[in-house]
């Protein structure tokens, strides 16, 4: 187990190196230099030369890559080309909002998907099962931004139940937050993961219910509750746990779109804006952060998977 964990953690290094390499190559192939923004008032040659020397752009490209890696390791992500702040500073102030949005969405998704999937498997082929299957199909099929459009139109514009712009600034603990304002972005972000988790939970429960050990548990006279909770649900949760990794990745990429649509002042919105402004250092910095987060999430899930299911032989 320990050697497996160590090997997987070490395997992260080439992956992240590759991510950094691709990011670097792509950023280099982007057109223009950071210092030729204003065509009407070109900078003097000497100034450009000094700026290039200051930022190391006059160096050969392999040296630049080494410099970039060195800076990355020291968490120096450079400065935004548009805002007068460093990338690390922007991430520091805006990531908490995104993290809150994402965690709330993950929590809501789990809180609804798990019971719904379990109940619909226990009551297979009844009304509630069909309803939850319909929900799961629609939720996994229709993209979040399309659902958001319908939701804004219905609940925001027509019924005026929820405000649909912003996040309500500077709230500390949850009860002091503007919950009404947070409702739509959070719930819509959670829908995709929720539908997917419902589907997986249901399928996994149906698989577990038909296992021999469940029949054994029944035949030795255990109460139905004990059979369901202790044997079926416990085993059915194993595949579900592995989905939380991809679901987290989905929440992260989903948050760009949702934050941008609802004007939530988080890192996802900043990322979309920086793409449209071609603020490359910010794009690269946020990309590296999110790629690292997703790699770590997947790694954690793989390790937890081996830990909760002893039948899985890790690191053969």
């Amino acid at each position, binding site marked *: 187990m320990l050697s497996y964990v160590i090997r997987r953690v070490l395997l992260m290094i080439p992956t992240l190196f590759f991510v950094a390499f691709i990011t670097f190559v792509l950023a280099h192939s982007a057109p223009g230099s950071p210092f030729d923004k204003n065509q009407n008032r070109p900078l003097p040659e000497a100034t450009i030369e000094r700026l290039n020397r200051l930022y190391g752009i006059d160096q050969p490209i392999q040296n630049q890559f080494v410099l970039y890696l060195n800076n990355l390791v020291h968490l120096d992500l450079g400065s935004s080309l548009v805002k007068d702040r460093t990338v690390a500073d922007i991430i520091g102030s805006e990531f908490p909002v995104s993290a809150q949005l994402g965690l709330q969405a993950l929590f809501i998704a789990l809180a609804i998907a798990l019971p719904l999937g379990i109940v619909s498997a226990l009551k297979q082929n009844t009304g509630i099962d069909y309803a939850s299957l319909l929900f799961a199909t629609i939720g996994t099929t229709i993209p979040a931004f399309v659902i958001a459009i319908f939701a804004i139109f219905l609940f925001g514009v027509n019924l005026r139940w929820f405000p649909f712009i912003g996040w309500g600034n500077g709230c500390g603990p949850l009860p002091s937050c503007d919950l009404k304002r947070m409702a739509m972005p959070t719930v819509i972000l959670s829908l995709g993961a929720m539908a997917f988790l419902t*589907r997986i939970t249901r399928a996994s429960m149906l698989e577990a219910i038909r296992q021999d050990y469940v029949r054994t548990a029944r035949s030795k006279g255990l109460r139905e509750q004990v059979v369901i909770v202790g044997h079926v649900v416990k085993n059915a949760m194993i595949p579900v746990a592995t989905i939380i990794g991809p679901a987290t990745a989905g929440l992260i990429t989903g948050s760009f779109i949702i934050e941008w649509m609802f004007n939530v002042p988080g890192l996802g919105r900043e990322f979309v804006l920086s793409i449209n402004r071609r603020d490359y250092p910010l794009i690269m910095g946020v990309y590296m952060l999110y*790629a690292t987060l997703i790699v770590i999430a997947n790694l954690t899930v793989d390790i937890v998977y081996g830990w909760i299911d002893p039948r899985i032989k890790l690191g053969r």
Partner: protein
Amino acid sequence: MATITRPLAGQERAAELNVLVRKQRSLWQDAMYRLVRNKAAMVGLGVIILAGLMAIFAPFIAPYSPTAIPNAANPTINADPFWTGTKYVDPRYLFGTDEIGRDILTRLIYSARVSMIIGFVPVALIFLIGVSVGMVAGYAGGWTDQLLMRITDVVYAFPDLLFLLIIMATLRGTDIGKFGGGLPLMFVGIAIVNWVGMARLLRGQVLSLKEKEFVEAARCVGATPIRILVRHLFPNAIAPAIVAVSFAIPSAMLTEATLSFLGIGVIPPTPTWGVMINDGFVVFSTSPWPVLLPAFCIAIVMLSFTFLGDGLRDALDPRMKI
């Protein structure tokens, strides 16, 4: 005196023996039969065919030009669709006009073109690369297989939408990105992030199939590896790949819609549903229809593909789950 009778075909022999036999069906006919009986899948297929026809015959059915503003000297801006019945309805534009006066119905119809192209070209690439690499790796084993698995590990670690975002964001301004309205770059991007899934699927299939007796038999009678791969393994391994394709198509379309919606996909004024939503979203709360209609189109097409994909999966491999 013995008479020589010719061997009887199934039906006749059944008549002779006075029993009923079912008409023999191949695996594919069987799958077809199950698919046709699946109502949701058939409705989905119908919608997809309709959208396909719409895409092909767009110039003949669309009333206006998709990019030019009709009556540009005095354009009708933000006309409402006819069913709203407001005073902003203009009978010349059934589905209304957008914020600079272009006909929405026309743009919706032409958008189907981009969606269909994005659905089929990159997925064809994914299928070709994924199937050939996956099958060769699975059959050859050894270092070919090892190399493939290491590459797929790394590509798998990339979150696909994030990777496409970064490709589009950085290369969009270059000549490669501007070529063909941004479509070829998107084809390649989508293919790069998705072929590994297909390759892994086929590799797994071939790994389990190549130990089966029919492959051994083929090898015994001296079939070449190429022949075994193409004639024996391919037809047996292909069913899950077809299911995967039926899900890859809508996912490619969705990628285009998402990127265009974020303003880094197809380059305007080429209409796509994503571009239309992006164009109209700023004034969404006052004039919702230019955004609602393309959103509705995306939802319908996505659902149709899911129904068809689910139907195909049930028809081709009833044992497959989820």
